[in-house]
């Protein structure tokens, strides 16, 4: 796997290390959420992205801070990869006043304006035109920015995807439709929902650029996204990126659900062996970019950060009930 052209070796090592750190951080944070969920203090639905860290991290690595993303119900990874505030995210999931929504949204409504995370919207597909509208605002105001709209394979079935893609292609807007194909919509496989053909064919309806990529290979994801971002900045319009990956835990909630019968243990294990985090760690070690010691320090450092963030969230007060009527109208 060759690296992004404009990066030389030492930079590349640092870059790879950052990618690894970002993926490991998301993994550890979501595993901590899963571990603590049964305490029933996080009283809102959570859709974990464990197993899908490379798509979020690789894609966001191709963006600048002032670029934007928009996401859906499964947004933790995207939020963190784009630089969303961890404490505000956890406080939100805990329903506390320091949450990014002040506790009003929960896990399914994460956003962070400073980091360029417009919103997370739990109605499947509903966020896609908002991402296109964000891109329209850049063109209109002549800002050199790009927006990535992360969608799942299921979201590509919603009519609004078609309407959003047609408009983005027509106006050559700087938006990237990043499709994380984790093969399932809830407990229904792709082949039960769409005819058999590459998902990249969805782009052909609109003469839109598209690219298929291994969603568990963070470098491949980064490079594909970088090409799409360059096209967008150059005024060549939108790209559909299809990244194959896999959700490890249940659709909604902290547990594993390979026992309920919608997917096979063999399938699950084959994907687990292609874990985006550990496979990348192994590669970095082969390259000599990552030492066991460095990895241990990293884990210790991240674990401390995460523990502190959870402590912060749980210490944060609940929002004052008397504020519940605020902000209905601007």
């Amino acid at each position: 796997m060759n690296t992004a052209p404009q990066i030389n070796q030492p930079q590349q090592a640092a870059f790879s290390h950052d990618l690894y750190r970002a993926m490991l951080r998301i993994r550890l944070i979501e595993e901590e959420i899963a571990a603590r969920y049964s305490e029933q203090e996080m009283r809102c639905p959570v859709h974990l992205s464990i197993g899908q860290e490379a798509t979020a991290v690789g894609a966001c690595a191709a963006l600048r801070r002032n670029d934007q993303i928009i996401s859906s119900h499964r947004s933790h990874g995207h939020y963190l990869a784009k630089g969303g505030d961890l404490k505000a995210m956890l406080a939100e999931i805990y329903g506390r006043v320091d949450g990014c929504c002040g506790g009003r949204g929960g896990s399914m409504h994460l956003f962070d304006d400073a980091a360029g995370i417009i919103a997370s919207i739990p109605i499947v597909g509903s966020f896609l035109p908002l991402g296109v509208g964000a891109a329209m605002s850049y063109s209109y105001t002549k800002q050199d920015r790009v927006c990535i709209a992360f969608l799942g394979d299921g979201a590509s079935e919603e009519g609004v995807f078609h309407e959003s893609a047609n408009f983005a292609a027509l106006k050559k807007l700087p938006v990237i439709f990043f499709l994380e194909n984790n093969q399932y919509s809830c407990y229904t496989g792709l082949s039960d929902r769409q005819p058999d053909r590459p998902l990249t064919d969805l782009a052909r309806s609109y003469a839109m650029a598209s690219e298929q990529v291994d969603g568990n290979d963070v470098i491949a994801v980064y490079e594909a996204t970088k090409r799409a971002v360059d096209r967008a900045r150059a005024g060549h319009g939108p790209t559909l990126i299809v990244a194959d990956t896999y959700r490890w835990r249940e659709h909604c909630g902290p547990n594993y659900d390979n026992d309920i019968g919608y997917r096979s243990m063999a399938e699950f294990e084959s994907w687990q062996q292609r874990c985006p985090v550990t496979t990348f760690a192994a590669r970095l070690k082969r390259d000599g970019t990552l030492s066991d010691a460095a990895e241990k320090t990293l884990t210790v450092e991240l674990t401390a950060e995460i523990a502190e963030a959870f402590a912060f969230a749980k210490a944060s007060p609940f929002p004052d009930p008397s504020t519940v009527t605020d902000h209905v109208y601007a």
Partner: protein
Amino acid sequence: MPEQRVITAAQAICEATDIAMAADPSVIVMGEGVADPKAIFGTTANLLDKYGADRVVELPLAENGFTGIAIGAAINGLRPIIVHQRVEFCLLAMEQLVNNAAKMHYVSNGAHRVPLVVRMIVGRGWGQGPAHSQSLEVLFAHVPGLKVVMPASAQDAKGMLLAAITDDSPVVFIEHRWMHYVKGHVPTGNTPISLDGPAKLHSGDDVTVVSNSYLTLETIQAVEALSAAGVQVDHFDLRVIRPLNVTAIVESVRRTGRLVTVDTGFTTYGVGAEIVSRVMEQCCLQMKAAPRRIGLPEHPTPSSRSLAATFYARSPDIAATIAETVGLDAGRVAALREQLTAGRESVPLDIPHPSFQGPF
């Protein structure tokens, strides 16, 4: 004896569907999740195994499209039951429901029928927040040509669904998420319950109370406490919000001179507004007290339990409002509140009962 068996409303819905599918091969079930292991909170459990994928049709994510597909199939003689796991998803299908399903029979001068059941789940809980726990029944109830029903018990869930499936008009069948857990004595067999209007749950001469869906259960608690306190309520479970039959309610208010409505949606432009107006058009000059409405306040559903705490009316609030309407003094109102609140502290406000595991 079978009549005494107790099942949940979720099981009752599944049983009704099973019975209807066994009785009529033109009945099919379509929806996102109807054939998956979770089976729409268990309401379509085992139907796939029993009737196969042609009759229990798992669908792509396309609410507007599949609603139209079901309408087209219904015009050609099938009897589809489509399911939306949240009313919010059905907002994508409003055009199909309002323009096609509701009007096809009328526009075709009676030639076409759309025997469609649109099941959708409304409700609350577990911090689902702004976009996953609304109760938007009025959006459908405002539209002539649709029938809109909201069962509150396991018995009605089964019987009214059976009636909805055999109805030749499109029926929007609204299930409150917490109603799924309600248990009841449900008769076995094909026992439809007609969609003709409200049910009287308690008789009294002091005040008329009209509640619907899950809040009927909270209201029953309030009515019992009031009864013990000497206030006798004429309590109706509305059940059918379109077409709306207020005959018995009007007759009741003529007697009581007092009206309180309790519904699961927003108060403003809500179900209660129509009940109050229909009654006032006929009983205005016989009223002994101003009508009161209980519903949701003027803001979206917050996720955090500290904010959601005041969002939903519960039996203490309902009892207090009724008590005020009949003129109980502040002391007795407070006492009722206290008494009804007492039982509840142990249960968090964002779950229907302790055995709840979450998430929904």
